[in-house]
């Protein structure tokens, strides 16, 4: 009981909570005819307390932006959320965020608002994006009551779509990183994973240009087509 009060007090002192005007946030963009070479794309990776969607929580967000076909390092997002109440003993070994780092993290709501502003409604890419999308949407709804739908694309689909003959040793992020000889500076660090995902995205976008996939819409369509093709294979 005393611990809870202490935490509550700490949160109150920590800064603003609640009362966020989510209406003034940038509106999510749709798959338009905008040229890929002119678009800003957000490549994101989340670290969570576990894989169970109903009980696990987001603890770190890393993201980098691709603009005009290059990664701009002055345009990135790298935050650990302040979630001291969470039990993270299970996954602490994987991503290396201990309880101490979590308590030093940022106010969750502030961090999420900051993220939404920074993303600017631009399309979001992630490796196995369904996982990140579910967790992020859940967190945004729970913390901010935010429910707008963003355009998501899965880099795990994007890569085989443009490199169908690549001989990777598997379908994981590490396999593709190996294929392109990329080093991941710190695996299971949200920002580092986002970075390598973005690097792979650059390679895919480069190929997209050569395959005449020029606009956001064409890219989304290509992914749809790819998905359907795979479903047909499975049948």
């Amino acid at each position, binding site marked *: 009981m005393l611990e809870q009060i202490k935490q509550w007090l700490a949160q109150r002192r920590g800064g603003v909570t609640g009362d966020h005007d989510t209406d003034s946030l940038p509106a999510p963009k749709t798959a338009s005819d905008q040229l890929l070479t002119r678009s800003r794309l957000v490549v994101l990776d989340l670290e969570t307390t576990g894989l169970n969607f109903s009980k696990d929580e987001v603890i770190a967000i*890393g993201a*980098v932006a691709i603009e005009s*076909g*290059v*990664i*701009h*390092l*002055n345009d*990135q997002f*790298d935050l650990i959320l302040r979630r001291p109440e969470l039990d993270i003993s299970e996954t602490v070994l994987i991503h290396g965020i201990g309880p101490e780092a979590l308590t030093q993290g940022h106010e969750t709501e502030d961090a999420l608002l900051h993220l939404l502003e920074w993303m600017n409604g631009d399309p979001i890419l992630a490796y196995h994006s369904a996982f990140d999308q579910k967790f992020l949407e859940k967190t945004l709804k729970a913390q901010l009551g935010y429910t707008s739908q963003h355009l998501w694309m899965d880099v795990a689909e994007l890569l085989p779509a443009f490199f169908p003959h690549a001989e990777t040793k598997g379908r994981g992020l590490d396999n593709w990183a190996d294929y*392109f*000889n*990329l*080093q991941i*500076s*710190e695996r299971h*660090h949200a*920002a*580092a994973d*986002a*970075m390598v995902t*973005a*690097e792979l995205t*650059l*390679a895919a*976008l*480069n*190929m997209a240009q*050569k395959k005449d996939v020029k606009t956001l819409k064409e890219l989304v369509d290509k992914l749809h087509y790819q998905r359907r093709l795979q479903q047909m294979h499975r049948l």
Partner: protein
Amino acid sequence: MAAANQDTTRPQNTRAIMSFLREHAPFSSMDDTHLAHFAEHATLSFYADGDVVLSPEDGLAKRFYVVKQGRIRGERQHKTEERTETTFEISQGECFPLAALVGERPTRTLHRAAGDTFCLSIEKKDFVTLISESEPFRDFCLRGVSSLLEQVNQRLQSKAMASIGSSNSLDTPLERYALRNPIVCSPDLPVRKAVARMHENNVGSIIITDDGRHPTGIFTLRDLRTMVAEEKGPLDTPIGQVMTSNPCCLPSTADAFEAAMLMAEHHFAHLCVVDEEQRLIGVVSERDLFSLQRVDLVNLARTIGTATHLRTLVALRTDVSRLVDAMLAHGADSGQVVKIITTLNDVTVRRVLELNLKKNDPGIPFTWLTFGSEGRQEQTLLTDQDNGILFETPEGMTPEQVREKLLPFARKVNDELAECGFTLCKGNIMASNPKLCLSIGEWDDWFIRFIDASTPQNLVYSSIFLDMRAVFGPSEPLHRLLENVLARIRKNALFQKMLAGNALQRKPPLTMFRNFRYLNDEKKHSLDLKRQGLAPFVESVRVFALAHGVETANTLERIDALARKDVFDAKDANAWKEAYSLIQAIRMRAHQEMLDKGEELTNYIDPDDLNPLDRRILREITYQL
């Protein structure tokens, strides 16, 4: 502790790029704040195999690149045939296009990705920030520039070589340089045996060839060192696995300068020389290109110093000019050459004085002084006589009486020196001028007036008289005089200020747009290298030297002394010395060419006559002023 804290506040990806950079030169010796500046301002881009990264058509180089992953290949169009050739490879951690960025020009080479490649890059303005803030980075980038300076020196040498008819000019085709019957082996030969073969033949490299004698790789002693140090494999490894593939090749018709450029640019020490069918015919090493020979200076100085007739001295001046040619040809730097010219000029002046004393001794001891550039030991072949006499008035005589005896003698010496090629000074700054033939007390008074009543005219004189030196006779009186003068100047801040103002009035000959500002409308296309190029250096350095009591009169030595006294930053001092020397070198070459053509020597040059490299360097240098 502070650094550690700071590091954890940087985003993971910034830290990751910093640690990537830290593994490569020059970043390995740069401060974290500068690496962070790089990482935070960088962009990362991807190029698929064969994509063009940078092309001469892109215009002025705008970004500074570092290969993060993959390789970049440089391609140039073959001169005669319809094909391209690879000129270099840039691999992980290496930078490009340094020369184009520093030279503010487009790249000359098409940069193409060899395999899937990721590059980090920063904008030119961030590159400039790093150059100005990080010493190791500046050193690294300026090394590129100084290799350009070296190239100019090479050009100078090659010109001079051509004029003395030597066969060792850098314009000569490579086939004359190349080592015939180079040491070769097949790729399956164990490293141990290959090295043994190199050892037997006393060479530093071995070329790996295929059955058709096409070079496929090169292995040098440096590769051996790396192999041993990094434990890349046992010495029984087939050499094909550790060689550097696709060695740099030039056709035998390429000239030595082209080879030198290529080596300087990519830090190779060896090049393969091939025939039209790309078959190996020889190897040329850096050392083959730049082997220097000694020039017999001592002998010439001795001949001058013992000449018995004026006409011998006059004749020997031609030899001095030839010696300068030879020195330039053999790679002496301009600072050395200038000092040697001064030495030989001094020997000549002394001999003229000695010969005259023998014939007609005025009977009064004196010190022969030189001023101006002669005083600073910075003469080139074109030298005015700027001289004077310092004497101690003997008991029972007035200075006037001494002058009566010394002046006719001085007149004769001035005339004879003129015959030797030291032109009579138009401003009559010569020992035969009664105002410059003074006793020690008179000189002292003269300087007092000169320092304490600083008029514009005095300032003009300052540039001449403050650089005085004793050439003949006892130097002790001059030393005493200079000590007094220096002490007085150090106390007189106003005089220092005016001297500095005078130095600043000389603008470097560049317009706002960094083109050359020409002398005036009549001489539309000429630059006065002496007044516009050298004088600003000389005068600025003089102000500092006088203010800090540096007694030496040579500009380069003054810069050194000031650097030792921590008045100048050692790095700046070196840059200035290099720049100064280069202008001297260009001036000397111009003089040599005027002599060859039988023209009157002037300090004017037309920048359009310079080759593009010289012109660019001159522009960069004058910008430093």
